[in-house]
């Protein structure tokens, strides 16, 4: 696919367009059934059934919900900053979708083989925060403003340990290329990055949940305090975009965790490698997604000041120590 981008013939452009459309479709199907799965899992944990009315086993519930959002009246508050209000969800969604390009599913199935793939991911995913702030600011609603402010504070605080925890993995592989990172973890589950980089993995998961604005870090949209936070004034399709970008980020983070720490498409044991790499990727990916849903049903919410304290006083120093130790150990083993 590298070559195709270089020589921009009509054929290659249409192929890239097709591939993008296919990715969008995959992501949309994931989001649709990710939400369904989340509601089911949380339902089971909470002694409920989850959706089971629309379609067989409630499989069409999310479809119906999205349809409802599409036909809803599109309202903009009177004194809102209209341009910014409309721009917010778009700014929030585009980076969420664009970062997916660099995630490799198998050695042959990927959309872009960038040699700075990880950097690309980190740089773009930061932009979504601006979309949330724009939404919160432009709504002309106090709760939305508080939610937007919290969101920015939280995302900046957690972006840093998230990135620094990745540095340990980069040191191990010596590359920012996602495919090379996965190739570096070949040969059984003991060579996955999760074991030598267990501290980084812990920091990464915590920071990732915070990045995703999910329980226990769902302060920007804390319903019991801020009602819905930054998207309180949004309805219909714009609201759907915020929700969509949130779930696309779940997809992205689960993919990224699989690639960085769980050995991507590699089988945990050599004798299991007859199973295609894509299946392994999906299994690992789904367990991360399940984990995210699971903690949502289990944990209470953190307090704002504790959240900041945890980010700056615990995760950041710990991730710096992790880099230091990793570097020394790598140097000694050389």
């Amino acid at each position, binding site marked *: 696919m590298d070559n195709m981008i270089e020589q921009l013939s009509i054929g290659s452009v249409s192929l890239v367009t097709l591939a993008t459309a296919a990715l969008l479709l995959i992501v949309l199907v994931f989001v649709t059934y990710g939400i369904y799965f989340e509601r089911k899992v*949380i339902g089971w*944990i*909470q*002694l*409920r059934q989850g959706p089971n009315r629309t379609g067989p086993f409630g499989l069409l519930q999310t479809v119906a919900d999205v349809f409802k959002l599409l036909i809803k009246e599109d309202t903009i508050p009177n004194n809102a900053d209209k341009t910014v209000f409309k721009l917010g969800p778009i700014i929030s969604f585009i980076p969420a979708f664009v970062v997916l390009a660099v995630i490799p599913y198998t050695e042959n199935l990927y959309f872009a083989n960038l040699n700075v793939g990880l950097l690309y991911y980190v740089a773009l995913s930061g932009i979504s925060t601006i979309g949330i702030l724009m939404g919160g600011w432009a709504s002309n609603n*106090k*709760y939305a*403003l*508080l939610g937007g402010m919290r969101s920015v504070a939280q995302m900046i605080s957690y972006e840093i340990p998230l990135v620094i925890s990745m540095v340990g993995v980069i040191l191990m592989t010596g590359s920012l290329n996602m495919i090379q990172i996965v190739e570096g973890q070949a040969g059984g589950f003991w060579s996955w990055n999760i074991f030598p980089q267990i501290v980084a993995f812990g920091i990464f998961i915590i920071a990732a949940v915070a990045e995703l604005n999910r*329980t*226990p870090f*769902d*302060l920007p949209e*804390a*319903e*019991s*305090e*801020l*009602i819905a936070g930054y998207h309180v004034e949004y309805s219909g399709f714009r609201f759907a975009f915020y929700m969509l970008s949130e779930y696309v980020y779940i997809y992205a983070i689960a993919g990224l965790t699989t690639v960085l720490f769980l050995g991507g498409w590699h089988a945990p044991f050599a004798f299991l490698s007859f199973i295609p790499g894509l299946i392994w990727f999906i299994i690992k990916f789904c367990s991360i997604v399940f984990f995210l849903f699971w903690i*949502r*049903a*289990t*944990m*209470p*919410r*953190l*307090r*704002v*000041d*504790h959240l900041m304290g945890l980010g700056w006083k615990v995760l950041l120093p710990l991730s710096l120590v992790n880099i230091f130790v990793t570097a020394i150990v790598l140097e000694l083993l050389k």
Partner: protein
Amino acid sequence: MSIRTEELLVNVGPQHPSTHGVFRLVVKLDGEVITEATPVIGYLHRGTEKLAENLSYTQIIPYTDRMDYLSAMTNNYVLCHAVETLMKLEIPEKAEYLRVIVMELNRVASHLVWWGTYLLDIGAMSPFLYAFRDREKIVELFNELCGARLTYFYMRVGGVKWDAPPGWIDKVKEFIPYMRKQIEEYEKLVTGNEIFLSRVKDIGKYDSQTAINYGLSGVNLRSTGIDWDLRKQEPYSLYEQFDFDVPTSTDGDCFARYRLRIEEMKQSLSIVEQAVAQFPEEGKIMAKVPRVIRPPAGEVYSRIESPRGEIGCHIVSKGKAEPYRLKFRRPSFVNLQILPELLIGETMTNLVTIFGGIDIVLGEVDC
């Protein structure tokens, strides 16, 4: 360079997920820190006390159901108890047993709702549904006893309306060990959770003197170390016969109140256990009461321990079928008054924690 900052005036409520009803709190925020909080109440005011002046005593009882709708049984009782004291009625033993059983079960149900919604406020979704699963069992028991799930209208002046149906006492007996197991599970799931502890420990602290100055009662008072439970201090009904503890704590914070409510559920279960063990199968459930209740002229103030604190009923009777004046001392209303003081200097997040910790029911605040 100095940044120009502005005070933010936020209306928390009347429609807000954490106000548990139509309660409004006008909050002035400096960033996320509260500088002033003013509660605005009255959205649910129905004029119960005034309405009562034109109703016969039995007709007032359903109105008390709708005051503290989470513990309607204790509300029923406080009115009946006041009228009975005024009339110097002797209540049959079986009726008293039934009253104690339902009041204590109602206390458990009320604390369960509190437990679930409090954790919902703090951001944990699941406990709410666990609590409602177990509350449902109590509600079902009440439904079988008096045909209602929330507004029971079960007690009458002189006794109770319905006898326990066959097998009901056995169901209560089965429920007690079940509920004890569930409470253990709750503690395992929630009480030790680090995030939960960081949210409630040392939050909303006040000392015993402040509590007394504000006239707090119930758990809000006992959490500051004062051993004051009307079931012990001024025993009414059959409470003298039962062996139970009044849990207190000296911490005075939200976590202490949480612990005490869990502890009270266990104590209530133990009271119910003793009551069903001694329950007399034979006997009347109503005292000899005239058809139209006309208490002698006079005044009476009776007070009992509701799940939220001291609920009192002051009746001024002129010997007529209707009270001349009826006044309820509602613990939720009194306990709420400390809120503005507690909120100064706290964040929005703690607002929810502190407010939830007081445990008010809006139906009772506005009456």
